[in-house]
């Protein structure tokens, strides 16, 4: 729990500890996007024809789409032709063993507190390391393979497991789902792929660590996780980026598929560079995450701790198709300075006796805006469906905003849907009580906020709490802004 206090302290003090840049030679495509660029990315990745065509189809749809404008965030227009869509550290070929990795990249992850090794502190976690547009390493692959678990970069999956990729890619988030998902479908470069076979309980946490390093680029990763019947997997995602004055676009797509009796637990600690105190720079985090509980009794659980990014636009969602399936969303969104977060979830109840639970905690400080936006939809056939939603917002200071925008749509008589929300500031009484027991004011605030978020923080897997502590506890010498 003390890590949460540290998290908050570091966060509210405005010091971003991962803002350094790695001096590594990168291959970057020139800025701009057209069919030629997409063909080049596809060719560079030696992709099969069907995927090139799939990308092009997405691109054509994207061109006809307008950027969404319903969310409660404002930003200057993005020039999509000014972004470079592919950046990768120069290397002849993907290193054969972990020992062959570029020492600069290796050092980067050391500094970030997640060294590329299969030992000690990370013994319980297998990590896929994504550096700008490519995956540079994946640990414990062989050990997982013994159980039939596939854990690799999506590029490798396209090559080694084309039938799985072809069946499931775009099956949850179709190419034309929304503007950013369409863009991602056209230009996605790397990301992680997980397949857990029938009846297998993945013995360790799987994790991807995303790092944006190059300037003038965007990151467009694609993650696909398939949990076959009766399997279980817990997946973790972390991310950081250097401090820059420019805004960089991160438009990822994550698709989860849970078959009968399968369970996927997906956790995120989002710590992209949030911009400086004046709101300059920072990542635009426009992400589409969606899971489908396709099987009976399947379960998908999203947990997110969102502290980074200049703008966050994401709604990790669950389509509860299988009877008796369960969707969960636990979220902490903390914004400070000029950050804007518009985040929440969608729970689409299709199957009978489907259940969902939403716990969202928003904390706004400085001049930031934090919005919870959520949809609970009970379709006609979802007999006996249940949803419970709790949204609480905490305001720190009188220049910020906290907003709650829930949509509840019910079309089945036997469904029960309950939504509760509160907004308040940190109680003066609580602050005084803590201070009179000896807590300095900042610690008292951290303590109270920590208590406010506990329900969500408890959902993070143990291994991740350790990783998160490492991530957040690290101090950096010579950070470059």
């Amino acid at each position, binding site marked *: 729990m003390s890590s949460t206090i540290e998290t908050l302290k570091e966060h509210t003090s405005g010091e971003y500890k991962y803002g350094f840049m790695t001096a590594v030679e990168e291959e970057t495509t020139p800025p701009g996007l057209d069919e030629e660029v997409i063909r080049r990315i596809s060719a560079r990745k030696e992709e099969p024809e069907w995927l090139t065509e799939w990308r092009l189809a997405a691109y054509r749809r994207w061109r006809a789409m307008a950027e969404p404008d319903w969310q409660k965030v404002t930003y200057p227009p993005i020039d999509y032709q000014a972004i470079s869509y592919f950046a990768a550290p120069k290397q002849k070929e993907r290193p054969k063993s972990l020992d062959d990795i570029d020492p600069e990249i290796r050092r980067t992850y050391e500094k970030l507190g997640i060294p590329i090794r299969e030992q000690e502190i990370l013994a319980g976690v297998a990590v896929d390391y994504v550096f700008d547009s490519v995956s540079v390493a994946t640990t414990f692959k062989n050990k997982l393979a013994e159980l039939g678990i596939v854990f690799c970069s999506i590029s490798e999956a396209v090559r080694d497991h084309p039938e799985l990729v072809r069946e499931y890619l775009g099956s949850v988030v179709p190419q034309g789902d929304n503007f950013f998902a369409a863009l991602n479908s056209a230009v996605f470069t790397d990301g992680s792929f997980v397949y857990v076979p029938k009846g297998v309980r993945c013995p360790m946490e799987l994790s991807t660590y995303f790092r944006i390093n190059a300037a003038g680029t965007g990151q467009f990763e694609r993650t696909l996780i398939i949990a076959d019947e009766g399997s279980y997997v817990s997946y973790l995602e972390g991310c950081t980026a250097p401090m820059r004055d420019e805004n960089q676009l991160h438009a990822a797509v994550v698709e989860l598929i849970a078959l009968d009796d399968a369970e996927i637990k997906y956790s995120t600690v989002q710590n992209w560079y949030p911009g400086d105190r004046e709101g300059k720079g920072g990542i635009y985090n426009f992400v589409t995450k969606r899971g489908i509980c396709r099987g009976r009794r399947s379960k998908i659980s999203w947990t997110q701790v969102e502290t980074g990014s200049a703008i966050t636009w994401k709604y990790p969602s669950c389509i509860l198709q299988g009877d008796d399936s369960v969707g969960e969303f636990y979220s902490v969104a903390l914004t400070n300075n000029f950050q804007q977060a518009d985040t929440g979830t969608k729970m689409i109840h299709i199957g009978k006796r489907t259940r969902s639970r939403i716990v969202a905690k928003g904390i706004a400080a400085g001049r930031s805006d934090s919005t919870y936006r959520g949809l609970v939809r009970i379709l006609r056939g979802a007999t006996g469906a249940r949803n419970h939603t709790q949204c609480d917002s905490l305001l720190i200071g009188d220049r910020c905003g906290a*907003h709650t925008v829930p949509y*509840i749509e019910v079309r089945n*008589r036997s469904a029960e*849907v*309950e*939504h509760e929300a*509160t*907004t308040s500031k940190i109680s003066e009484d609580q602050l005084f009580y803590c201070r009179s027991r000896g807590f300095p004011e900042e610690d008292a605030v951290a303590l109270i906020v920590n208590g406010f978020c506990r329900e969500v923080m408890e959902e993070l897997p143990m291994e991740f709490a350790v990783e998160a502590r490492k991530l957040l506890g690290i101090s950096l010498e010579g950070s470059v802004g």
Partner: protein
Amino acid sequence: MGAATRRIDPPPFYGELFARERTRLPGHGRAALDRVREEAFTRFLGLGLPTQKAEAWKYSPITRLANREMALAEPTVPGLEEVSAWFGGGPATRRLIFVDGHLQPEFSHVGGLPAGVRVMGLARAIETIPEAVAEALAGCDPERAFSQLNAALTRSGAWIELADGVALEEPLQLLFLHRGGDSAVMTHPRIVIRLGRGARLHLLETHAGSGSGHCFVNLVGQAVLGDGAELLCDRLQLGGSGLSLLARGFLEMGAGARLRATTVALGSGFLRNEIELRLAGREGEAILSGLYMPRGEEHVDTLVRIHHEAENCHSDQFYKGVVEDRARAAFAGKIIVHRGAQKTNAYQANNNLLLSDRAEVNSKPELEIYADDVKCSHGATCGDLDPEALFYLRARGLAREVASSLLVYAFANEVIERMADARLQALTRRAMLERVPGGAALEAEGLL
């Protein structure tokens, strides 16, 4: 998802109708008023008809209704009993009675008003205080297409003005009868209320309509409550399948002003209530309650927006719905706490009973908060009757059907209880009971 898809151009008949009718509208020839109508109509064309892509109309398919060719309703004369069935208040209650948007002087009675009180039909107001009317119409609700259409075409309604410190003890009733006709008609009533400092008014507003003829009512009410003023408002709406009632209230409240409004929207083919409320002075208080009970193919929706603009204000929204058959209900309530509106207390509850598998409930309780020292909360629920309560009643010997009826009645009655006028409350309760499955039996068995 561009702005273009959020509106459509109004069909040409609107322009033709305005061109045809403008010279017949009250006050025609008075330059100020003519200009206001002209500008409002131009604005209406520019704003266009909202589609369901427009957030405020997400659950409300209005374009289909507003797109049908309609004419302004012609006056007809009902029988007294048709009107008196909807009387609220007591023997001394003053009433303005409108039939298809036309004031019926023979049934109306607003005489003997105390000093400092002015109550009259809108047409009369246009005759006597044209500048004030023009000003009221011009300044109100510029971003909403239907409000602009109303300003352009209104020809009846009520002008109610109470001077500082004046109280009207007996309730004042505005009774609207929407009969419709063979061809589709529309009316655009306008209610203007001005309460001086410390003035007090109890208003009853009833809408009734039995016909199945298409009648599109585009009502706009605007009220300014001075510091310390008090407005009590009881509203009952019950129309036939042909009635589309769009009722918009736009209120501005001064320091220490108080509003208590209870709206019971039992049903109509299409019924939409909008309340936009500005708590502009310190320590204002607004308590809004509502009940909706659509059945059959009816659609009822409610949109509430409360702006907390000043410190120490209190607002409370309490809305309940019972939705049956293939009916659809929507509730969108929003609390906006503006920067600096510290010590705001705002609550919002929306509870729905969904009693059919073909029915639909949509709820969107929303908070938008820019001040930190506030206490705001909302809750929304949707479900069937509480099985435990049902079991309890059955264990006490009530048949299942009777027990369900009783629970539905009790659920709905909680809102009706909040009406201040006893006669209208009784009337409303009867009409509500008629909508509760097995409700008549409840009454017969003396369970109430």
